[in-house]
């Protein structure tokens, strides 16, 4: 049976692009680091559009061929070699990453400019190289097909993300970074332990081979159960799902705005992506049903807990960070909806794909909306000199475009039409009802109300016309406002696109579960 899976699939056009997506940020990172000074920024800004082009090309190749792209590094097929792999989900996430990073790059130019007169400054060099490193880590996670390679990719991502938190160097941000690092290290070592157990039980770490061996080896070895549980626990610590979320709010709120946008929109999604891979691509279905309930219960707790805590925050950035906690919770509701026993017989019919598309849409629209929100908060904090929610009265009169962008992003987070968040939550709600799991709809609706509540706390005073006019400490550049607005519009426009055009995210999905069938 094994020989069947080690066959190299026919070379598809676009497969070498996977290597480009991996190499481009790494090459740019080295170039930026060696050239240093003002060149680092130029290298990043020149590389980002190329990376966007590569991501678009990969998505086009996956969509055009309607199949997963494979690339065996060095021509060695697994189990001997390591392969890269891009299905619809990977392609979607590569594209999202590239779009968000392009926006972040344009936005961050003003914050991380080398001061005139100086040849090089520490914070800009660190920021631009770390941005490339985060990008490389994310692409490696999205393309990886080997559990150990994914471990290395996750670690690269962590090592790039942690210093982003403490770029300012204040004691609070260093403590936040250290806390983040400790959680992340615990997570990665648990993940590695899971990897060791998988290798010990099945002799491979390649996702496709492992899933085939798990499907054929009935009953499942207890080691595989322990491995999956350990890996999930480790990845949950990195995704900051309740109750392992303690590190996230101070870390995401303490980073500079551009860094927060990257961390909240993209970095936490990488480990979530691996949990998806683990339970839908590696583990056999019956086990996924069980795990799905646990994951979704934690997700539901995160939605409520994150929402309530966001209502109580005094600082705008802390509020947005707690909102990330709640929105991560929504992602975990995908598990029981996709893996529901009610949906399983009709896997290639309507139900399961709806929940899957909804989950991916939630991931993508949250990435755009949250990046826009953090960057808007950065503009507000820069213009007012503080980011106390209490002091935002009348903000809409002085920074209309920023507040508008913030509100648009909020629209998507709340799940109000027309927005990507609405389409996502609508799909998840209908999947919950179709599979007879109505209790998840209650959580989603309550979460929507809480989101409305904490955004109202910000927007109601910001849009009020009473009170003395605000004075700005520093003017806001129009171009940066436009970047934020563009990103917020992306998250809204996702909801206007007809749902049938999201076929991309389904590619490779049914094939992955059907691989063990005769």
């Amino acid at each position, binding site marked *: 049976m094994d020989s069947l899976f080690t066959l190299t699939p026919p070379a598809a056009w676009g497969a070498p692009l996977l290597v480009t997506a991996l190499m481009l940020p790494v090459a740019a990172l080295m170039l930026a680091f060696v050239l240093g000074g003002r060149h680092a920024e130029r290298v990043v800004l020149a590389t980002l559009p190329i990376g966007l082009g590569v991501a678009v090309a990969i998505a086009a190749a996956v969509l055009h061929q309607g199949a997963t792209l494979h690339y065996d590094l060095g021509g060695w097929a697994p189990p001997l070699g390591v392969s890269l792999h891009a299905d619809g989900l990977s392609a979607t996430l590569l594209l999202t990453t590239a779009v968000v990073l392009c926006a972040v790059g344009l936005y961050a130019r003003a914050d991380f400019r080398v001061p005139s007169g100086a040849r090089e400054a520490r914070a800009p060099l660190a920021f631009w190289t770390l941005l490339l490193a985060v990008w490389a880590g994310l692409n490696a996670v999205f393309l990886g097909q080997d559990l*150990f390679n994914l*471990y*290395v990719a996750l*670690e690269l991502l*962590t*090592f790039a993300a*942690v*210093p982003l938190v*403490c770029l300012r*160097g*204040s*004691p*609070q941000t*260093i*403590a936040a*970074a*250290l*806390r983040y*690092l*400790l959680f992340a*290290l*615990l997570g*990665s*070592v648990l993940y*590695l*332990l899971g*990897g*060791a*157990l998988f*290798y*010990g039980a099945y*002799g491979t770490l390649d996702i496709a081979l492992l899933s085939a061996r798990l499907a054929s080896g009935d009953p499942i070895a207890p080691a595989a159960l322990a491995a999956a549980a350990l890996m999930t626990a480790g990845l949950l610590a990195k995704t900051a799902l309740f109750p392992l979320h303690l590190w996230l709010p*101070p870390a995401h709120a303490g980073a500079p705005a551009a860094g927060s946008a990257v961390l909240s929109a993209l970095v936490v999604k990488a480990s979530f992506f691996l949990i998806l891979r683990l339970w839908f691509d590696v583990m056999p279905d019956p086990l996924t049903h069980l795990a799905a309930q646990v994951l979704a219960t934690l997700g539901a707790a995160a939605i409520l807990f994150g929402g309530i805590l966001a209502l109580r925050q005094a600082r705008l950035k802390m509020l947005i960070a707690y909102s990330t906690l709640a929105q991560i919770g929504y992602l975990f509701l995908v598990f029981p909806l996709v893996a529901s026993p009610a949906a399983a017989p009709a896997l290639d019919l309507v139900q399961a794909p709806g929940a899957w598309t909804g989950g991916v849409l939630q991931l993508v629209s949250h990435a755009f909306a949250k990046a826009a929100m953090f960057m808007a908060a950065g503009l507000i904090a820069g213009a007012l000199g503080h980011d106390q929610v209490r002091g935002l009265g009348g903000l809409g009169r002085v920074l209309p475009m920023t507040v508008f962008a913030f509100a648009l992003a909020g629209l998507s987070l709340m799940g109000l039409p027309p927005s990507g968040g609405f389409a996502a939550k609508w799909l998840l709600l209908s999947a919950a009802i179709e599979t007879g799991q109505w209790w998840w709809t209650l959580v989603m609706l309550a979460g929507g109300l809480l989101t409305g509540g904490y955004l109202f706390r910000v927007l109601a005073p910001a849009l009020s016309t009473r009170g003395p006019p605000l004075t700005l400490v520093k003017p806001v550049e129009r171009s940066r406002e436009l970047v934020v607005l563009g990103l917020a519009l992306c998250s809204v426009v996702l909801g206007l696109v007809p749902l049938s055009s999201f076929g991309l995210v389904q590619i490779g999905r049914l094939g992955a579960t059907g691989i063990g069938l005769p």
Partner: protein
Amino acid sequence: MSSVTLFGLCGAALVGLGLFGLIVQPGVLRKILAFNLLGSGVLLLFGVIARRGAAAGIGSDPVPQALIITALVVAFAATVLAVALLRRLVQETGRDSLDTDG
């Protein structure tokens, strides 16, 4: 008891000790050391797995050994980053635990 079982149990014990330390110890330096203990336990397990593969007759399984070397480098880098952050924290605030801040 075969040496594989013995080393396997040692690895498990190290993992348990490390996990306990990482969660319970308040000082960050102790947490970092506990992380290293935990990591060593995991790597020892990888070694046991390589040896077990050898017992099954496929020579000494080289894959886990390669993984160990990579994971060692990663764990070393992680430790360096953590210690650097801790040093900076101590310089700035004079305390070496994360408990006091909310």
